[in-house]
C-alpha cells in the first residue's frame, strides 16, 4: 500500500427526488436552503457520514481485525466487546493505533483525546459544503402516520414533513498529498473513499434518503507538485429548457462541461489523468455538442 503522493481534486454529483437530502435539526428538519438564492445545501459532515457508514456496514471497518471507524454512532455497535472500556483504553494510549486502524481518521483527520491533552490530525481529504446546481422549491407533505399519538386513542396521528421535489447536489473536495503523509493515507483508502461516496449514496435506504442516485464523480489527478486548479465543481453548469425550480429528473437537463474541458486543457502539462464514474442517464455537452466522457483525453472510468 503506497501513501498518497499526488494532489487530486474531487467533484461528486448526486440527485434526490421527493425526499430530504439533509434536514436542518433546528428548523423542523426541513431541507437546508440558502434563502437568498434558493439553492439547496448539504453539509460536508452529511457526506462524510455516508462514507463512514458505508465503510462500517459493507467494508468491514467495524472494529474487527484492526479495521475501524473512529467517529461512529454507538447504536451501530453490534457487540459488547467492541465498545468495551478496554478497547477505548487501547486507543487512548496509542494514537498511532487509531491511525492504523481507523480509515476515517486517515481520510478526514480527527482529534484524539489523551489524558490532559489531545492530538489533532488534519484530514488530507476535505469537502466543501454541498450545493444544488439549480434552485429548488420546498414541498410540504402531510400524511397519516401508522400509529396513534398515545395509547387509548382511536385515531392515527398526522405526520408532516418537508421534501425537495428534485435536487442535483454537487460536492467539491480535495485530496492533499502533504497532509496524507501525516495520517499515512494510502491509495487504497482513497479508492474506498470513492467507492463509499458512490455506493454509500445509493445504499442510504432510510425513508428520507431513498432514491438518492450518484450521477457523476470526477477525480482529477495532478502530476505537478502542489498545483491545483481549485473549485472544479464550478466549471460544470446545468443547462435546462425548464425553469430551474421545475426540474424533476435527470432527463430535464444536460451538464455543460465546456469550461471544465477548457481549464483541463489549459493546464494540460500539470494534469496527469482524470478518473470518473458516471450514471448512464446523464447527458454532457461540450461547446454545444453532445459528448461522452470516455471519448475525452486522459479520462478513464473507475472500476468499482
Amino acid at each position: 500500500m503506497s501513501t498518497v503522493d499526488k494532489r487530486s481534486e474531487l467533484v461528486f454529483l448526486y440527485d434526490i427526488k421527493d425526499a430530504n437530502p439533509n434536514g436542518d435539526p433546528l428548523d423542523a428538519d426541513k431541507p437546508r436552503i440558502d434563502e437568498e438564492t434558493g439553492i439547496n445545501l448539504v453539509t460536508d459532515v452529511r457526506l462524510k457520514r455516508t462514507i463512514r457508514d458505508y465503510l462500517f456496514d459493507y467494508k468491514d471497518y467495524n472494529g474487527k481485525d484492526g479495521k475501524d471507524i473512529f467517529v461512529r454512532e454507538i447504536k451501530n455497535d453490534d457487540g459488547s466487546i467492541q465498545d468495551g472500556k478496554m478497547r477505548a483504553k487501547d486507543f487512548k494510549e496509542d494514537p498511532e493505533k487509531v491511525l492504523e486502524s481507523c480509515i476515517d481518521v486517515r481520510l478526514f483527520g480527527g482529534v484524539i483525546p489523551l489524558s490532559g491533552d489531545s492530538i489533532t490530525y488534519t484530514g488530507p481529504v476535505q469537502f466543501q459544503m454541498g450545493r444544488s446546481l439549480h434552485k429548488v422549491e420546498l414541498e410540504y407533505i402531510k400524511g397519516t402516520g401508522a400509529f396513534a399519538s398515545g395509547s387509548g386513542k382511536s385515531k392515527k396521528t398526522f405526520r408532516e414533513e418537508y421534501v425537495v421535489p428534485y435536487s442535483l447536489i454537487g460536492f467539491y473536495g480535495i485530496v492533499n498529498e502533504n497532509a496524507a503523509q501525516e495520517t499515512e493515507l494510502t491509495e487504497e483508502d482513497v479508492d474506498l473513499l470513492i467507492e463509499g461516496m458512490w455506493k454509500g449514496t445509493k445504499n442510504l435506504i432510510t425513508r428520507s434518503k431513498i432514491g438518492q442516485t450518484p450521477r457523476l464523480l470526477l477525480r482529477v489527478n495532478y502530476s505537478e507538485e502542489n498545483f491545483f486548479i481549485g473549485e472544479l465543481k464550478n466549471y460544470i453548469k446545468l443547462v435546462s429548457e425548464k425553469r430551474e425550480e421545475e426540474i424533476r429528473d435527470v432527463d430535464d437537463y444536460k451538464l455543460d462541461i465546456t469550461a471544465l474541458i477548457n481549464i483541463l486543457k489549459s493546464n494540460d502539462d500539470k494534469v496527469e489523468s482524470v478518473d470518473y464514474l458516471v450514471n448512464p442517464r446523464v447527458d454532457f455537452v461540450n461547446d454545444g455538442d453532445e459528448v461522452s466522457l470516455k471519448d475525452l483525453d486522459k479520462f478513464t472510468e473507475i472500476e468499482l
Partner: protein
Amino acid sequence: MDKLLLFDIWADYAHFKKYYTTTSPLTFAIPPKTTLYGIVGAILGLDKEEYLDYFQDGKCNIGIEIKNPIKKTRINLNLINTKSAKLMSRIDNRTQIKTEYLKDVRYRVYFQHQDDEIYNKLKKYLFEHKSVYSISLGLSENLANFEFIGEYEVAEIDNNEDWIDVASVLRVDSDYLSKGDIDFSQGDREYYSDKVALEMKPDREVTDYGQIIFEGNGKSIRAKPKKYYELETGDKCLLL
C-alpha cells in the same frame, strides 16, 4: 521603494470565530491577521506547530481589502455532543449549534514580509497557483481558492495631513489614525467595527488586538492617516 504582493482569496462560506463567543459561534467579517498568517503558512507548507515563528516581531505587514459585500447567514450544525461521547467520537447523542457564516466572501490581501525567502516563495506559489496544504477560510469545509493579482511597488507616505480614499480596512486605535481622522459623512457607506487579533506568539498567546473599521460593501473609506502606503497604481492602503 518597497514592494508588496497582492492576491485575492475567496470561498463560498467563511467562519472566523469571535473569541468571545462560546456556545453560539459568531464570525468576524474579515479574516484576522493571524488567520492570514495561517493561510500563508499553509500555502508555503510551514508546519502548523511552527508557522508562527516566521511571523514574529512585526516581520509581516498585511492589508485587507473587502471585495464582495459582507453577507452573514446562519447554518445549524448537528455536532457530536462530546460531553457524553467516549473518545469524543463515539456518538451517544448530538448537539445542534447555530453557527454564523459569511457567504460568498472575497478579500484582497496586501502582503509584505521582511524575510525574502518567505516573500519570494509566496510570490512563486501564488503565481503558479500552488499550495502545499489545502487552504480554507476559518473551517476546513470552507475550502478556498486564490488568484495572484501581482507584485507592486509601494511608497510609504509619512506625516500626511490630507484626506485620502483608503481601499483597505483601517485600524483606529493606532498612533497614526484615530476615529476622529475618519470622514463618516459619506452617505452611501455602511461602517462597521470589529476587534480582531493581529499578532500572536508561537504558543498562540495573542499579543495585539486591533480595533478595525471597515465598509460593509467593500467601498473605500475617506480618512486622514498620518501614515499610509501608496501603490504604483495609485491605490492607497493601510497595513496592519
